[in-house]
Structures are given as structure tokens and as C-alpha cells.
């Protein structure tokens, strides 16, 4: 073994107690491919959408008896470095630096009262709790129309377009990040 290798090994062992790095990756659920989504044009039935995409991760009601279904997935990579230095017998100081990328992306399909697809959105995820998704209102009478003011219907980046932000960090809206 060369002296250089021995030096590197010794340095690694010396630093092991106070410096460490990590590389992590988190994957969850299956990605919806754009080509698959292209099969679902507005006007498609709920049955057709379920057949193509499977069971959604999340379902919620939208105004006027509409329904929104969300499929989301995560493939996030991150790495970080932590340095720790003992200060005295009772404490130490440490600092961590991390770089994590996008939390994930999702697809939301919006259906009208007849369960016909009216709109689809693809974008970055946001946590449902960040935007205060409301519980459904109580129904006042059978057959009564839903209150158009209840609930929200945006779930990705709220832009009304089919594409989310290029960096995958979704903005406003609700629901796409609803977890299970």
C-alpha cells in the first residue's frame, strides 16, 4: 500500500468523528408518464381515466359537485455535509449543509358533476395543509346544488396551464401533495 493511500486512510479515520457526508434518495409511487397523460383529453370519462392511471393518491370535491383526482410521485435526491467540533466536556458545535431537490410532482384531473374530465394539470407538489383544504359542507337538502364557494380546485401550480414550473417546485393551489 502506498504512503499516499495510507495518508488518505489515516485522514479519513481522523475526520470520521467530526465530519460526515451523506447522499440520500427518496422515491415514492410510480411516475405518470407524459405520454400516458396525453391519452386523456378533456371529455374523457372517469372510468377511462381510472383505467389508464389506476387508483389516485387523493380525491376531493370541487365546486358544483365536481371531483378532483390527484396522482403524485416523488424522486428526490439530496446530499449534505455535517461538521461537528467538541467545545468542552459538556457540549459541541455542529453545522450542516444540505442540498435537496424537488419534493415531487403530480397530476390532477378535474371532473364536472357528470364525472367527465374538464381539465388536467401537471406540476410540482405542495402540501395540502399549506393551503387549508376545507372539509366538505353539510348538505342542506337532498338534491340541492353544492355551494360554489366551497373547496378549491387547484392542486398544482395554480397557473391553469398543463405544465408545472420547470424546477418542479410547485406554487399555490391545494391538494397535489396530499399524502397517505
Amino acid at each position, binding site marked *: 500500500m502506498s504512503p499516499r493511500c495510507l495518508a488518505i486512510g489515516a485522514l479519513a479515520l481522523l475526520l470520521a468523528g467530526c465530519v460526515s457526508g451523506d447522499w440520500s434518495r*427518496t422515491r415514492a409511487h410510480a411516475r405518470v408518464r407524459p405520454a400516458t397523460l396525453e391519452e386523456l383529453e378533456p371529455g374523457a370519462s372517469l372510468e377511462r381515466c381510472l383505467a389508464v392511471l*389506476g387508483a*389516485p393518491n387523493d380525491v376531493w370535491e370541487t365546486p358544483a*359537485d365536481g371531483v378532483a383526482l390527484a396522482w403524485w410521485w416523488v424522486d428526490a435526491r439530496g446530499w449534505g455535509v455535517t461538521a461537528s467540533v467538541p467545545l468542552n466536556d459538556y457540549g459541541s458545535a455542529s453545522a450542516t449543509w444540505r442540498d435537496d431537490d424537488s419534493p415531487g410532482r403530480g397530476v390532477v384531473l378535474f371532473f364536472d358533476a357528470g364525472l367527465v374530465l374538464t381539465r388536467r394539470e401537471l406540476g410540482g407538489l405542495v402540501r395540502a395543509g399549506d393551503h387549508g383544504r376545507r372539509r366538505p359542507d353539510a348538505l342542506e337538502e337532498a338534491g340541492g346544488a353544492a355551494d360554489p364557494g366551497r373547496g378549491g380546485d387547484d392542486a398544482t401550480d395554480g397557473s391553469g396551464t398543463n405544465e408545472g414550473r420547470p424546477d418542479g417546485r410547485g406554487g399555490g393551489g391545494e391538494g397535489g401533495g396530499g399524502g*397517505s
Partner: protein
Amino acid sequence: MKHVLPVALALVLAVAPGCLFARERANRPIDEAAVGKLAAGDSAARVVELLGAPTDVVQLGRRSAYRYDFTQKKRTGLWLILVGFLNDDTRQDRVWVFLDVDERVSHVGTTFQGDEPEFAMPWSDVE
């Protein structure tokens, strides 16, 4: 050549304490055959009879939907003196049963991927 085995053994023993394999499960795997018995028009009672209590019930105006899910996560870790590698892979079985205003099954959506998470490293390709 005669040193290969001891060196390999020493390497394995040196690295093994830094390895992590973990599996987390939530709920029971969904019985695909039972889901297959559901048909449009079945009552909510029939749904519960076949699949048990749902994990969630969502009100959709005058309709509703029952959610059933099973989640499995596999976590793999490796720590090598100065650097650590950690990978999480999570997959689900999910079934949504949509009920109409008369509480009859109108649609069923299924995804069965709960047995697909893999023990992998961050650089691995996992579909």
C-alpha cells in the same frame, strides 16, 4: 489467490456494521380477488363486506368514495467512515370505490404496487 477469501471476508465484516435494511408496512395488502368481485351497482354494505372498513371516506358532494390502501417502504443505508448513503422506496396498493348518490358502486380504481419497492442504493435505477 489464497488471500482473496480472507480479504473479502475482512471487507464484508468491516462494511457490514454500516449497513441498514429496513421495511415498513402500513395496513394489510389488499385482496385483489376481493376487489375483482366488486361490480357497478353493488351496495356500500357489499363493499365493506368484501374489503372491510376503508382507511378513509371522502364526501364528494352527494357522492362519496372509500379509500383502501396498503403501503410498503424499503429503506437501504450504507455508512463508510466519512460518507453515508440512504435510499427510501415507497409503493402502495390503492383502491378507490366511488359511490353514487344512492350509495351504489359507480366506479372502482385500483393500483397494486405495494409489493414493488426495492432495496436499492441512491444511484440505482428503480422503475
